[in-house]
């Protein structure tokens, strides 16, 4: 039971980290990133591959963040020229391109077979290693949340909000929003990369199949349900998402005669319905949240 709760807790915090990253990009700066999973995947594979070469895990995590952040640079630069609808599809296409590349370049990634046997974080601590992972992630999420709140209140944060609200007015005031947008995009992507590293070393087995666009829309669903633009929204939304994902697992016991595959379909249907209903009736999230 403790192990189960711990596992759910770790996954919930990983989604939390992803949602906080997306909150920086979309919630604050209105950058529509439909390719969250690409940076998550690159982080997971970077850290996984390095760790298999015997690189210390701490270094692997840093590399995961840095590489995912750097990968966001060209997309961030592209985003400067795109309206949000184009950016949405470009990032979605980017995430599929990344997934297919991971699948095809098996000399590096072992392709569809995936990477088994990744070292666990705090493996030396034996039975409490998962608890330690949970605690580390919790500390990181708390740090990022605190940092985001600080950021929002700083002049830099006000600038980001202003970019999201009215970029033209900002340019008229003589500020150049371009570089800030790129920075925020890279920062959010780096967070997703670190989340990917945590995922890789918690699950210890990664395959390209784990990085489908659905993951991106889980994160979006969490953020939008909680209320985009606030830390509270990102955190609560991710927890709600977890209740939803885990709850549907238990729901299988109540819905007799539905196969495992059928249940997966129903879960996807529920995600779709939730995305529709939230955008229709709760654009500011279930908890209200300040309207923008």
């Amino acid at each position, binding site marked *: 039971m403790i192990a189960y709760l711990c596992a759910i807790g770790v996954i919930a915090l990983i989604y939390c980290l992803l949602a906080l990253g997306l909150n920086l990009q979309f919630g604050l700066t209105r950058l529509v990133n*439909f390719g969250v999973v690409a940076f998550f995947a690159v982080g997971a594979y970077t850290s996984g591959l390095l760790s298999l070469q015997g690189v210390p895990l701490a270094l692997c995590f840093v590399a995961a963040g840095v590489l995912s952040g750097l990968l966001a640079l060209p997309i961030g630069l592209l985003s400067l020229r795109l309206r949000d609808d184009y950016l949405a599809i470009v990032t979605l296409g980017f995430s599929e391109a990344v997934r297919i590349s991971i699948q095809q370049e098996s000399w590096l990634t072992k392709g569809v077979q995936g990477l088994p046997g990744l070292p666990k974080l705090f493996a030396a601590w034996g039975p409490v290693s998962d608890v330690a992972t949970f605690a580390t992630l919790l500390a990181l999420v708390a740090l990022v949340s605190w940092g985001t709140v600080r950021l929002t209140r700083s002049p830099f944060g006000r600038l980001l909000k202003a970019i999201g609200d009215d970029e033209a007015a900002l340019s008229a005031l003589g500020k150049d929003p371009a570089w800030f947008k790129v920075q925020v995009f890279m920062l959010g992507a780096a967070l997703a990369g670190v989340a990917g590293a945590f995922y890789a070393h918690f699950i210890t087995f990664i395959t390209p199949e784990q990085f489908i666009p659905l993951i991106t829309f889980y994160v979006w669903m969490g953020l939008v349900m909680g209320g985009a633009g606030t830390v509270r929204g990102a955190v609560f939304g991710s927890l709600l998402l977890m209740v939803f994902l885990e709850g549907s697992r238990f729901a299988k016991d109540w819905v007799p005669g539905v196969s495992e595959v059928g249940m997966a379909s129903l*879960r996807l249907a529920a995600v*779709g319905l939730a995305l529709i209903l939230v955008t229709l009736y709760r654009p500011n999230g279930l908890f209200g949240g300040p309207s923008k």
Partner: protein
Amino acid sequence: MTWIAFANLLINGLIEGLVVALPALAMTLVMGVNRFPNAATGDFLTTGAYAAVAVQMLGGWPLWAAALASMAATAVVSAGSYTLIFRKLAGRPMVSSMLAAIGLGFLLRSLISFFAGHDQRTFDLPLVRAWNFGGVRLLPTDVAIAGIAVLCLLVVFVLIYKTSFGRQLRAVADSADLARASGIRAGGLMLSLWVLVGALSAIGGVLLGMKAIVSPEMGWESLIPAFAAMVLGGIGSPVGAVLGALLLCVAQELAVPLLGPSYKLVLSFVVLALVLLLRPAGIMGRVQRVR
């Protein structure tokens, strides 16, 4: 590469392009008028293909009759989704409509896979031998696919450019306010547009299923190519969408000997990014405000 191999790839690319042109056109119509990229377009295709499969299985009907029934069914789904979802999101930020469209796509795809399973399906088609012109091979099925696609494109172009429905549609696309001021009723017009989009997607799905296989993911996989075709041709330009689809698919086929078939989608993405970077208005498009 010999000229024969080249010709075969070219022919295949052109036929695929004609098939991709249908969803690209469906997307461009919605983009031009309702101003958001309908990310559920691909899943409308899947809906159409499965509706036709279902009709064929139920009644043992010929494919053309199944396709007509599937057009009607998908048109209902499409018009229904406009009435229940997208109409209410008009005037909200574009990302709301897009998220809802993604959600709708998930919903359609999962309902299909719930009832029909994940197994690949095929249409009940007679097996035919390819014609061989000294090495240049041509499948009769492919010729039929190309013919039907061209016919559908012609019908849509006549509707858009030669009828009052099309004139009103273009008026709304140019300026919704001006159109309303000159007495165009948007409600019925929008519903007709979405009926047309649904029917067009259904045919696209059936043709895609005839060319390859029918699976719950088939439409979703054509989303990025259709979008790339639309952008390549110029957003909101119906002729551009068709040209874009042909260009993109020919390029994809010609790249297969170099990159292998798995990288087709990656190539779509690269084309998309390059076009947006170098020529955001596309081949046929007018310059739009890009912030």
